[in-house]
């Protein structure tokens, strides 16, 4: 049954991805400037330009370019970067890895901390802990991410305590995780950006669940408070919180440019801005699809959590 639901969602996701690819392709067509010119720069001769255009298939009709690009996607060929004169996959491979590492570490901190703090807040509703954590998460959630980043750098790296490196600098070919100390600040910043949302959602959902009939019933059955929370309340809050986490993760996948900028982190966000300014169309396209796919995958995962924590969805017929 679960398998059927998942297969169905997967199919829908594929359709969505397909539509995204179409949109992205059309959107990138609108980018001003000639990609070939962008590669070769000002002094390029018309012959050189023409040759490169041919090489980049810029002279084919639009639909044909789309189809060949789409075909490429299926075979893992993401296209050809104008900037590096090499395959896009080569350019992005390390960056995707780096982004995943950042994302992974940040969520490793943010998710458990967010869930714990949110749960405690809900349990201590109206008391000091709740007020402090609600206040903190409110303020953190209101600060733009670069403000948090700049603050942390000034605090921990350059001004107050000079204990952490402020930028990431792995030598080429070496993965970022070989330098764990350099990962601390970007990870921390990202975690601080994301955690408040999880805290707030967890708190709100927990409050709702704690007010629900079955939690009251568990208490009336004489179940000790610890079990009431762990066995009865928390599992119910996980479904909706998973949705929020998914949205946050998806945002992290594509939206952390500012943080990557700040810490010179070699992730895809920076590559994206670079690619747009360089008119590196195929890189923009590839990145958009990758980010969209990431969004869809995490959402799928969140749905899965929702299904697993809700037996009704698990056992009922596929709608």
């Amino acid at each position, binding site marked *: 049954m679960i398998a059927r639901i998942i297969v169905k969602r997967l199919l829908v996701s594929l359709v969505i991805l397909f539509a995204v690819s179409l949109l992205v392709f059309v959107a990138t067509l609108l980018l001003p400037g000639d990609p070939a010119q962008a590669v070769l720069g000002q002094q390029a001769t018309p012959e050189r330009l023409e040759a490169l255009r041919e090489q980049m298939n810029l002279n084919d009709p639009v639909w044909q370019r789309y189809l060949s690009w789409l075909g490429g996607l299926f075979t893992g060929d993401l296209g050809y970067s104008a900037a590096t004169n090499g395959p896009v996959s080569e350019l992005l491979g390390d960056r995707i890895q780096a982004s995943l590492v950042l994302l992974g570490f940040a969520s490793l901190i943010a998710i458990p901390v967010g869930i714990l703090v949110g749960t405690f807040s809900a349990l201590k509703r109206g008391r000091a802990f709740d007020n402090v954590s609600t206040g903190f998460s409110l303020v953190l959630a209101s600060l733009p991410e670069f403000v948090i980043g700049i603050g942390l750098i000034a605090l921990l790296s350059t001004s107050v305590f000079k204990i952490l490196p402020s930028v990431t600098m792995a030598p080429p070919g070496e993965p970022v995780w070989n330098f764990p100390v350099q990962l601390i600040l970007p990870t921390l910043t990202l975690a601080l950006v994301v955690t408040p949302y999880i805290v707030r959602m967890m708190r709100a959902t927990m409050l709702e669940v704690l*007010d*629900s*009939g*079955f939690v*009251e*019933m*568990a*208490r*009336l*059955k*004489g*179940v*000790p*408070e610890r*079990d009431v929370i762990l*066995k*009865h309340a928390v*599992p*119910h809050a996980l479904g909706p919180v998973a949705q929020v986490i998914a949205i946050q993760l998806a945002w992290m996948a594509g939206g952390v440019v500012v943080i990557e900028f700040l810490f010179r982190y070699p992730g895809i966000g920076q590559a994206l801005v670079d690619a747009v300014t360089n008119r590196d169309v195929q890189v923009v396209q590839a990145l958009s699809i990758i980010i969209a796919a990431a969004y869809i995958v995490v959402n799928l995962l969140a749905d899965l959590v929702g299904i697993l*924590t*809700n*037996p*009704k969805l698990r*056992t*009922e017929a596929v709608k």
Partner: protein
Amino acid sequence: MGSTTMEKEILDQALCATDLRVATLDGTEILHGIGFTLHPGKILALVGESGSGKTTAGLACMGHFRQGLKLTAGSVVLHAGTEGNILELPEHKVRTLRGKEISYVPQDPALSLNPAIRIGEQIAETLRVHRFGSSEAERRTRVAEVLAEVGLANDAAYQRRFPHQLSGGQQQRVGIAMAFACRPKVIVLDEPTTGLDVTTQAVVLATIHEMAERHQVAGLYITHDLAVVAEVADEVAVMLEGDIVEFGPTQQVLFSPEHRYTRKLLRSVPDLAGKRRVGTVEAITGEQPLVIPGPAGNPDTTARHRDLDDAKILEGTPARAPELDAEPPAAAGPLLRLSDVAMAYGEHRVLDGIDFELAQGESMMLLGESGSGKTTLSRCVAGLNHAYTGSVELSGQVLANGTRARTAEDRRKIQYIFQSPFSSLNPRRTIAESVEVPLRMSGVHDKAKRRALVREALDQVRLGERYIDRRPGDLSGGERQRAAIARALVNAPSLLVCDEITSALDVSVQASILDLLRTLQNEHGMSMLFVTHNIALARHISQRLAVLQKGKIVDIGTTNEVLENPQHHYTQELLANVPTF
């Protein structure tokens, strides 16, 4: 009484609550110092209308107060005080009593069972936290045993079901099983049968009765249904706005009530036999004696006086509207004719070839259990479901399927009233704004005229001028339902379709609504299709009765015919299960 009996009584008591006072956090008192005693093997019924504080009192016995409420005074002592006043015990001590010594059956099992935990596990959990039995295996056996006791299957597969895989009645029985699992001495049941159909209700009531008797459990049974009280309770306490206004053995309270409120409450309960008159206006179903029988069939004089007074007041009201006589209904053929109406939601056939006719000025009751298709059918008539096949004729003319396809005149003639007054009026609009919608849509553009018509309609439903600019939030459920009826009346329809319009309301409110409908029928000769699952209402509202089961009409005829000589075994079963007193 001698002192020995007193002592015996004390020894006998399972729970004694005294001077319970509960208030909201901002100081409004909800319970004004009530007290009662529960005895082993006996059931005390706590009755009263919605909001009178029944649930609050029941939970107070468990030492539990809902968020926003607090105890201000009072004590609850379990079997002769071995534990002391449980309201003063620390939370973790109270926890050890809950579920073990005193347990609770919630009103709504759908909300109170954890949807993510299998039912067997939920029962086992109670056993586990109270260290019932010495091993897991022993507890498993107990789970199976208690499931069997409440009449459910108890095999492993059944225990592995999730709550949503059970029907409402089964869920409720799981709740009862959970409450009885640890063999408690006291059990609090909060309206455990509300929302169940009569047949299921009968089974659940029997279960409760039997369990209480067998295990000598003291029960506190909270309800607003007096018929149920007559079935299960040994004693009755009547609550009104946080006070117990009357207390005594069931027989005494139900058949010779002392308090005026109790009498009023009793008078509002419809009975299948139609012996009592519900409300003050006569139904056109036939003459009813204005007699409320006492326990031994003797007329209850106290009640009688009141009713006779009421009857006097009504003397000016003619039994039938004069114009009704002037215009014989049969002349123009039936007002409404359904032929071969059928409807399906996907694969699921909900209506399966419905045929019937309704004459002008006639009132017909459509009876059936939950899910039998009553709402679906009445919505087909009103044009709210347009996916039906077959034909609906009004005064000989076939109507289009959906309201949008019907003419304004068709729409005016058939009016539909929804079940829940809490949902059928837009909370953001004033009563006048809601009531004038049909006028607006049928082309009455003059604002003053609309206002006048609205006022008139509100008058008809006995809602005065002062309600006109209020919003539904400021109205009680009964008042809202009246407003909804006013909206249906404002355009002077010829057919009123009422879909369980009283089932969300207290009995006393129901009585006044029935009153209103009868008056309308009397005065305006309106036809009515009255949908309900409460067969006890039959004689109080309708001349004809149709019984619907699984999308088919299985019994149809005049009310008397059907009630006295039911043809279909389903109707017979229904009639057998109706709780009466």
